């Protein structure tokens, strides 16, 4: 083929592709986040962070909602959790924001979005609408995660807490007949379970939120507090805080706890190493059950309540959902989907698929949920703890304070520092953040 013909054909092809692309660009995909209305239905754009199989389930539920009524049409859009708040704030300030966010995994960074003034308060929406939802239906510890400066801006839609998951077979082999209820008992059991290169227990070691999240229950159980009532002073370096941390570091010193991190970029709890038999107990959530049941066999998996130091305590993490400013129809439609999503039947369906725990107290009465708990009796341990669970302070500087504490906790757990020094340094750094 002559070079000139080839060149001409190449140019023609390039021009064709360009034209096709321009046409596609002009016709499909609207530029702004809100596409207005279609067939008289108000379109609600909903951002969510669901990945993998939970994403498929959420799409199913959105379709079900759209078919169940003819006023609103919800469009689901996945946005990655990394940089979510920054992206949301940018969209809010340039009028390209979604109408609704479902399942934000970082509730404490909501403060930044609220500062734009475009998040709608839900205080007067609760109790209204077609789908009954009142503030009393939500456990106070969970509801608190969406409250900023006394106003409810977000509702918790996914709940999560943790307990101790253990290997029943190893317990039987070590001659342990009853599960521990206090940390002293757990340390004694761990001693019996440490043999042949395997350890008794894995305590959270690593960077990130998980060690701080689990440490807070120890702190509360020892009688301490994370921050003062007015969230202005750091209080975790109290004697109770040191006692809490020492409970863990003493086990590492005694050689009964796994001495390094078992977390990786895909999980924080250490379940792969548990499946491999490297330790007999670890702190995990309900979402870990399937992985360990598949790994060592469902008959070998057991769960017991998170032990106490003096009083039982539990931390709860929630993913929150919130509504952004828009027209009256859009706000009403957003709240309609949110309250529908939090109805007992919907929560049961969502939690069975996702492994999260319900945030609506009425879900306990749902038939689907009751059947699910009956099939998975281990779940009841997690659910029962929710009754006394507290949540982390919802202030915008939480993530920095947590990062400071997390770094020091890691050093203490790796025995590079004493618990007192670690907590004191973390408190200094945390207080500096609060004083800004």
């Amino acid at each position: 083929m002559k070079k000139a013909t080839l060149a001409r054909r190449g140019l023609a092809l390039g021009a064709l592709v360009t034209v096709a692309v321009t046409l596609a660009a002009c016709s499909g995909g609207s530029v702004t986040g809100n596409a207005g209305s279609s067939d008289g239905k108000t379109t609600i754009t909903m951002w969510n962070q669901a990945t993998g199989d939970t994403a498929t389930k959420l799409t199913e539920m959105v379709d079900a909602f759209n078919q169940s009524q003819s006023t609103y049409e919800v469009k689901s859009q996945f946005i990655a959790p990394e940089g979510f708040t920054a992206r949301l704030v940018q969209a809010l300030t340039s009028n390209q924001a979604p109408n609704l966010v479902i399942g934000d995994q970082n509730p404490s960074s909501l403060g930044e979005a609220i500062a734009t003034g475009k998040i709608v308060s839900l205080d007067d929406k609760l109790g209204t609408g077609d789908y009954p939802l009142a503030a009393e239906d939500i456990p106070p510890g969970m509801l608190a995660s969406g409250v900023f400066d006394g106003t409810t801006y977000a509702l918790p839609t996914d709940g999560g807490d943790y307990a101790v998951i253990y290997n029943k077979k190893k317990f039987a082999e070590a001659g342990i007949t009853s599960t521990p209820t206090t940390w002293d008992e757990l340390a004694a059991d761990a001693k019996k379970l440490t043999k042949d290169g395997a350890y008794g227990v894995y305590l959270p070691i690593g960077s990130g939120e998980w060690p701080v999240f689990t440490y807070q229950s120890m702190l509360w159980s020892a009688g301490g507090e994370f921050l003062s009532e007015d969230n202005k002073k750091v209080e975790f370096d109290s004697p109770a805080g040191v006692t809490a941390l020492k409970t863990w570091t003493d086990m590492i010193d005694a050689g009964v706890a796994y001495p390094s991190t078992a977390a990786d970029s895909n999980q924080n709890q250490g379940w792969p190493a548990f499946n491999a038999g490297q330790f007999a107990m670890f702190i995990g959530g309900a979402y870990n059950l399937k992985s360990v049941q598949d790994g060592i066999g469902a008959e070998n998996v057991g769960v017991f309540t998170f032990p106490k130091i003096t009083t039982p305590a539990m931390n709860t993490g929630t993913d929150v959902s919130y509504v952004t400013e828009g027209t009256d129809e859009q706000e009403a439609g957003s709240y309609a989907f949110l309250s529908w999503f939090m109805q007992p039947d919907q929560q049961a369906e969502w939690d069975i698929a996702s492994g999260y725990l319900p945030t609506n107290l009425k879900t306990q009465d749902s038939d689907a949920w009751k059947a699910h708990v009956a099939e998975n009796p281990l779940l009841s341990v997690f659910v029962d703890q929710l009754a006394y669970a507290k949540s982390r302070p919802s202030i915008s500087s939480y993530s920095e304070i947590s990062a400071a504490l997390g770094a020091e906790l890691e050093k203490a757990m790796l025995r590079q520092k004493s618990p007192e020094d670690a907590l004191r340094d973390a408190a200094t750094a945390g207080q500096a953040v609060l004083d800004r």
Partner: protein
Amino acid sequence: MTLSLERSLPRTVAPIPEPRRRKPLAARVPGILRHAVLIVATVLFFGPFVWMVLVSFKSAQEALAVPPTFLPTEWHFDNYSRLFQIAPFGRFYLNTVVVAVLSTLGQVVTSLMAGYAFARLKFRGRNVVFVVLLAALMVPFEVVFTPLISLLSSLGWLNSYQGLIVPNIPSILGVFLFRQFFSNFPSEIEDATRIDGASVWQRFRLIMAPMATPMIGSFAILSFVYNWNNFFFQFIAVNQTDFFTVQIGLTLLQSQEGASNFNLLMAGSTLAVIPVLVVFLLFQNQIVKAISGGLR
């Protein structure tokens, strides 16, 4: 007389072969060492890709198992079909191909013309502008993306093909490469055509561009690979699934705890890597030439 007769006879008898002797070990060692080093390097560089492909066929459990298994105990070919159930990966592929191809085309064309202009055309401020461009090369993208996104947002180009392609069309590196290439080019042919009365465009189109074909090929491949893998910019410029590229689509497979989709993530990554691998295999000669600077 007899001598010349003998010499004029054609040689019909085959020469007696010398007996083959194995080279002594001392002489073979460099060859063995070379092979050993190459084998180690191959394992080190190829190992992660082989691992990625193997993990993409494992179950979710086995993907993260400790200690890790090498070959899957059960081959889960359905991981690849499950990918397409979770998200419209076909659409993501189309988007990535469109964006990568058009961006590369734009980069090659503009860099070629600009490189020629800086090398061969004399205009006022030519050197100043070139130095400013070189300085701009040192500014990392993380510094400029915020105002860029505001600009795209005010133009209404977020979540659109033009928003993904147009900011990537200027390539300072490309201008630099082509300018160096044209500078090092002997100017006799070009002078000859200029004397014959060819205009700038004709010189460029008929002489210089065809001569630069190897360089264009190499730069096009490097540019294609860059645009295919340009995760950071695509991640922040797009908020709608319709305009996701394959790289952003992979974030849909990451998960924090519990129900890990690590095996699916590896399957998606394998699919994302294959086109670039194919392009590289087809054009590896040119890439090596370009990087080793053998193009003059």
